[in-house]
């Protein structure tokens, strides 16, 4: 492929991913509200359009029309920078996550990933760590005690859980012998999904993913009863929307990461036995990836409306005394497994 062709194809992919991400995020908010309502025997939003389908657009319009307030005690530049970092991290992480296998069309090979980076998983981990800055900056620069407490809690929480997350990922990498997401997916062909091979690693990664995305039961940075809104207490209008969007975008990315690392990505076991034409196989595999993604995202929301928030000391106890040793145990188990296989 020539350089021009590469740029055009990549640009198209970026635009598609960005648009799909934005739409998914807005509908994730809608489904969050719907599922919350269903779990509480309510109906949920149903006024804007049929069954409330256009509710996300109404929400975004409302946020756009709100006044943008920067507190006088705030550090204006940091205050503005923080939501930008949050959005940037949230939207750039998806670039390395493959949605489907590569396929040949018009005599050329295309792949369902914006950038097939050979250190893709490292890139994801690095960017999610940058995401901590967004929350810490927003908490520190707001000049409000609630924001500061939320920001500090968040950085402590994310750093603690990043360790168990990293060790869980190390187990996956050990089996796949590659940091390239596509290679990791290919290593999980058939029933060799990592959730089957290393269930403990899956659980530690799942819990860490909840903590990293600040979702309940680990949403201490924005614990409403204690901290008003946590790190985004002093944000309004589109800056608040940026945090809101990035939270949900992070949820999508975490789900995609879980699917890629543990649920076999786009793989469908025994699909090759049906002997379907190549086009059908690719379509089915992309659909499989999306279905797995939707299930994990549903799981995120489902857990949120089932489990109460942890206390701060419990959070730290679980992070350091349970999740960290468990992920180490998992690494040991995978090392033995790698020797046998």
């Amino acid at each position, binding site marked *: 492929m020539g350089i021009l062709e590469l740029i055009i194809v990549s640009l198209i992919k970026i635009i598609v991913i960005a648009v799909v991400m934005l739409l998914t995020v807005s509908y994730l908010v809608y489904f969050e509200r719907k*599922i919350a309502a*269903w*779990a509480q025997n309510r109906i949920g939003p149903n006024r804007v359009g049929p069954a409330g389908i256009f509710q996300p657009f109404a929400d975004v319009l409302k946020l756009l029309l709100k006044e943008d307030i920067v507190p006088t005690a705030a550090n204006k530049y940091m205050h503005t920078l923080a939501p930008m970092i949050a959005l940037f991290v949230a939207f750039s992480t998806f670039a390395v996550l493959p949605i489907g296998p590569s396929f040949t069309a018009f005599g050329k090979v295309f792949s369902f990933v914006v950038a097939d980076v050979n250190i893709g998983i490292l890139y994801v981990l690095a960017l999610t760590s940058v995401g901590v800055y967004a929350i810490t900056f927003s908490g520190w620069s707001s000049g409000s005690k609630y924001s500061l407490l939320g920001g500090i809690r968040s950085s402590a929480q994310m750093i603690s859980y990043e360790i168990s997350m990293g060790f869980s990922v190390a187990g996956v990498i050990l089996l796949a012998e590659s940091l390239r997401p596509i290679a990791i997916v290919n290593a999980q062909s058939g029933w060799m999904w990592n959730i089957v091979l290393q269930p403990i690693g899956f659980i530690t990664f799942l819990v860490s993913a909840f903590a990293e995305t600040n979702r309940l039961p680990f949403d201490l940075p924005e614990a409403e009863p204690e901290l008003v809104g946590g790190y985004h207490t002093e944000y309004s209008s589109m800056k608040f929307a940026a945090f809101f969007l990035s939270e949900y975008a992070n949820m999508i990315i975490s789900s995609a990461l879980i699917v890629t690392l543990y649920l076999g990505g786009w793989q469908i076991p025994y699909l090759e036995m049906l002997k379907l034409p190549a086009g059908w196989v690719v379509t089915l595999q992309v659909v499989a990836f999306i279905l797995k993604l939707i299930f994990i995202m549903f799981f995120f929301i489902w857990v949120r409306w089932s489990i109460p928030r942890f206390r701060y000391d419990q959070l730290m106890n679980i992070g350091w005394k349970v999740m960290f040793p468990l992920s180490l145990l998992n690494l040991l188990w995978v090392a033995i497994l790698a020797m046998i296989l």
Partner: protein
Amino acid sequence: MAKKNRLKDLSFGQRIYITEILKGLRLTLKNMFLPKFTMQYPEVKFDPPASYRGRPVLAMEENGQERCVACGLCSRVCPALAIEVQAAETENEKERYPVKFEINMLRCIFCGFCEEVCPEEAILMSKDYELAFTNRADAIYGKDKLLTPVSKLQDRINFVRQFK
């Protein structure tokens, strides 16, 4: 269920959270498919029971006359000072009637004391709960808005006779 709420009393299965979390998840999932309690308000209206204390109204007999004898007890008992009554004489059997009877709905707290104190069963709490005004003057309900035929209040009258 046995009272097990201390950490030391928990069994191993309860301590590792996972089974308990799955129980919680099962409960919420089950609830997602149960019937909903939401009443779609503007389309479906709530029909309150007789014990409901809505907007206070004045009972009007079939001949178009109010039962009220303008004794002023409701006005006296009203803790929010929402009721204003002005009495006048009349040729009828009851001899007195209110020329002016006003309830300020911005002040009314729906306590139902007026109804309780009324010797004539003339002031009653209706089932009307849709009270919205666009200005303060509209919130002062005069006789024109308060008078309601007895037939419409029968439910409440029966309730009051039973429990008062």
